[in-house]
C-alpha cells in the first residue's frame, strides 16, 4: 500500500475538516475547522479532555458517520489524494481498513464474544485484501507475532484472554491489512499500569519495524508522551496548538496546554498539581471569540474575537497572546 513515489509528500494533510451532528437543541459542532498534517512514520497525539471532539475527529477521518451527522466538509489528503472526494464504495474498498485503520475506544470489550479471536482478526484481511481463509490465518499468525500474542491463542475466545491480550488482538486486527496509518482512540485507558506500558512498547516497535504512522487520541498526557512525535491539542472542537513533542512537553504555548501539563500528577513532583477551574463549553452553545477565554488566566479584551492560528518556527498556536 505504501507508494515510495510520494515519499516527499506528507502522508496525511487535513484541511478545514468540519463535522457537526444534528440534535434537537441545534448542531453539535464537534469538529469545527481542523487543520493538521502528519509525515510518514510519525505519531501525532490528539490531546484533549472528554467532550472536546477528538473521537468525532477520528470518525470524521474514517467517514464513520452516525445517522445524525449533519455538516461534513473539508479535505483529507492521503498521499496527496483527497479522499473526501471518493464515493462510498471507493472509500470502503481502498481507504477504510485498507489504508487507514482504527482501534476504537474500548475495542477490547467490543470483540465478538462468540467468535474465536483468530477468525475475528482474519476478517478484515478476507474482506479488504480478498485473500482466502488459509492465507488470512497466515497473516493473523504474523500479526500476533508483531503484537506479542502467543500463536495458540488463535483458537481462543475473547473471554479467555486478559484485558491486555484483548487489546493486542484489537491492534492486530487493525494491522492485518498493512495500513499506512492507524488511529488509536484511548488505547490504554482501562488497563493496568504494566499492561499499558507493554502496549506502548508494542506500538513503539510497530512504528520502528513496520514504518506505520499513528494518530493517538487520548486525554492521558503522561502516556501520550510514550508515542508522540507531534502533539495537537484539541479544545471545544478546535485544534488550539500544534507542536513537535519535544518542545511541547518542555514548554507548551497555549494557556490551556500549560494548564493541562500542570494538572498531571507526578511521581517525584514536589510541586502541587493545579487543576483547571470551570468546564469546557457545550459544543452546541459555543461562546463567541476564544472558546477557552472564560477559563483562561491570561485573557484580555482581544479574546472576545476569534483568535488566529499563529505559526512560528514550525509550531502553531491559536491565541491572541502570540499574534
Amino acid at each position, binding site marked *: 500500500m505504501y507508494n515510495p513515489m510520494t515519499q516527499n509528500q506528507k502522508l496525511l494533510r487535513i484541511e478545514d475538516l468540519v463535522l457537526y451532528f444534528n440534535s434537537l437543541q441545534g448542531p453539535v459542532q464537534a469538529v469545527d475547522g481542523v487543520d493538521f498534517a502528519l509525515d510518514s512514520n510519525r505519531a501525532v497525539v490528539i490531546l484533549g479532555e472528554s467532550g472536546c471532539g477528538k473521537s468525532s475527529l477520528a470518525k470524521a477521518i474514517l467517514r464513520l458517520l452516525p445517522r445524525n451527522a449533519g455538516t461534513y466538509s473539508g479535505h483529507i489528503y492521503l498521499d496527496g489524494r483527497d479522499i473526501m472526494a471518493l464515493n462510498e464504495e471507493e472509500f470502503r474498498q481502498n481507504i477504510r481498513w485498507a489504508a487507514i485503520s482504527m482501534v476504537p475506544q474500548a475495542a477490547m470489550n467490543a470483540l465478538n464474544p462468540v467468535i474465536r479471536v483468530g477468525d475475528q482478526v482474519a476478517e478484515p484481511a478476507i474482506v479488504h485484501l480478498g485473500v482466502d481463509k488459509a492465507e488470512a490465518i497466515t497473516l493473523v499468525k504474523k500479526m500476533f507475532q508483531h503484537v506479542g500474542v502467543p500463536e495458540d491463542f488463535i483458537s481462543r475466545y475473547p473471554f479467555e484472554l486478559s484485558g491486555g491480550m484483548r487489546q493486542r488482538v484489537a491492534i492486530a486486527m487493525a494491522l492485518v491489512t498493512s495500513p499506512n496509518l492507524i488511529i488509536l482512540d484511548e488505547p490504554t485507558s482501562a488497563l493496568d499500569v504494566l499492561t*499499558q506500558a507493554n502496549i506502548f512498547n508494542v506500538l513503539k516497535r510497530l512504528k520502528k519495524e513496520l514504518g506505520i504512522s499513528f494518530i493517538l487520541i487520548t486525554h492521558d498526557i503522561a502516556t501520550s508522551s510514550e508515542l508522540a512525535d507531534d502533539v495537537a491539542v484539541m479544545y471545544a472542537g478546535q485544534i488550539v496548538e500544534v507542536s513537535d513533542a519535544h518542545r511541547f512537553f518542555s514548554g507548551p504555548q497555549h494557556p490551556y496546554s500549560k494548564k493541562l501539563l500542570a494538572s498531571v500528577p507526578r511521581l517525584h513532583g514536589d510541586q502541587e498539581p493545579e487543576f483547571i477551574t470551570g468546564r469546557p463549553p457545550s459544543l452546541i452553545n459555543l461562546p463567541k471569540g476564544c472558546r477557552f477565554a472564560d477559563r483562561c488566566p491570561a485573557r484580555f479584551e482581544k479574546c472576545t474575537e476569534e483568535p488566529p492560528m499563529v505559526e512560528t518556527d514550525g509550531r502553531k498556536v491559536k491565541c491572541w497572546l502570540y499574534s
Partner: protein
Amino acid sequence: MSASQAIDIEKQEGSRKVLLSIDDLHVWFELRRFGFGHAGYVKAVDGVSFDVHESETIAVVGESGCGKSSLMKAILGLHKPTDGSIVFEDKDLSKLDEKGMHWYHSHVVGYVQQDPYGALPPFMNIQKILEEPLIVGGIKDKEERLQRIHKSMEEVKLTPASDFLQKYPHMLSGGQQQRVVIARAMIMGPRFLVADEPVSMLDASVRVEILKLLRGLQETHNLSVIYITHDLSTVSYFSERIFVMYAGNLIEKAKVRQVLDNPLHPYTVALLTGTSEPDSKNAETFKELPPGEPPSLVNPPTGCRFHPRCSKAMMGICDVKSPPDFEPEPGHLVACWLYE
C-alpha cells in the same frame, strides 16, 4: 492550639490510635466443578496484615487480579474472612450480628466506588441519591436529612446545591458525578472511607481536583482513608503509607516517600518503571518490564509468587520458600529474599 495543629503533633509522635487492624487475613473462594465437587480455591487474599490509624491515608497499590478488590470487600464486610481477622476498634467484624453489621455499614465505613457512571442509579435524582443512606441509617426527620444533604453538597463543592439536587446523574459531568459519590459516602459521617480507584475513570486533568477534595475532607473530618489504586503517580498527593499487593500478598509496606524514592521489591520497581511522566524522551526508549502476567490465584507459583517473572530470582530459594517480611530500613518492610 488548633485541632489541626494537635493532629500534626500527634502524627509526628506516631501515637495515633489504631482504628482498623487486619491480621493474617485470608479470603478464599471455593471453586465448584459443575455445581458439585470441590475443585480448589481462588486464594484472593492469602495472608495480609496491616493497621490503619486514625486520620491516616494508606494506599493499597496493585494491578488487576492481585486480590485488592477482595481485600476491599472483606474490609467493607461484604466477604467473611476464610481465616484471620478484621478488627475495627475493638470489634471483630466476623463476630458482628446483623444489627452490628448495619451499624458498621451506616456509621463506620463509607465506600467511594470506581465508576461514577455505574455507581449512581440513573433513575434517582441527586437529592434522592443522597437521601437514601440517611433513611437507611435511621435519620427519621426530613428537615434534618435536607440539612445534611445541603451540608454535604457544600463539602464536595457542588454549589449552589439547588442547581444540582433535582438533576439526574447523566446530566452531570464525570467529575461532578464522582463528587456525588463522595458526598454519598460521607453523608452519615463515617470513621473511615474505602476509595476504590476513585479517579481512574476520570480525565487525567480532573483527577487531581477530586483527590485534593478527598484530602481536604480527610483533614476536616479526621477521617482515615484506604485508597485502592494501580496508579502510583497519584499516591504521593494523597497517602502517607503504601502497601503493594501482588497475587494475594502484600509484598512491600512503607511510607510513600520511602517506596517512591527507594523501591525495594522487583515488582515495585517494575510498577514505577511502567508509570509514565510527560517527557518527550519516552518516545525514544522501550520500557524494561517483567515478562508474562500476574499468576492465577487458584494455583499460584510455589515460594515467592513473583519469581517466574523476576529478573533477580534466585533459583533454589525464591521458587521454594515464600519470603517473610524483612526490614532493610526502619519502617520499610519488603517480602523478598534479596533482603535477607
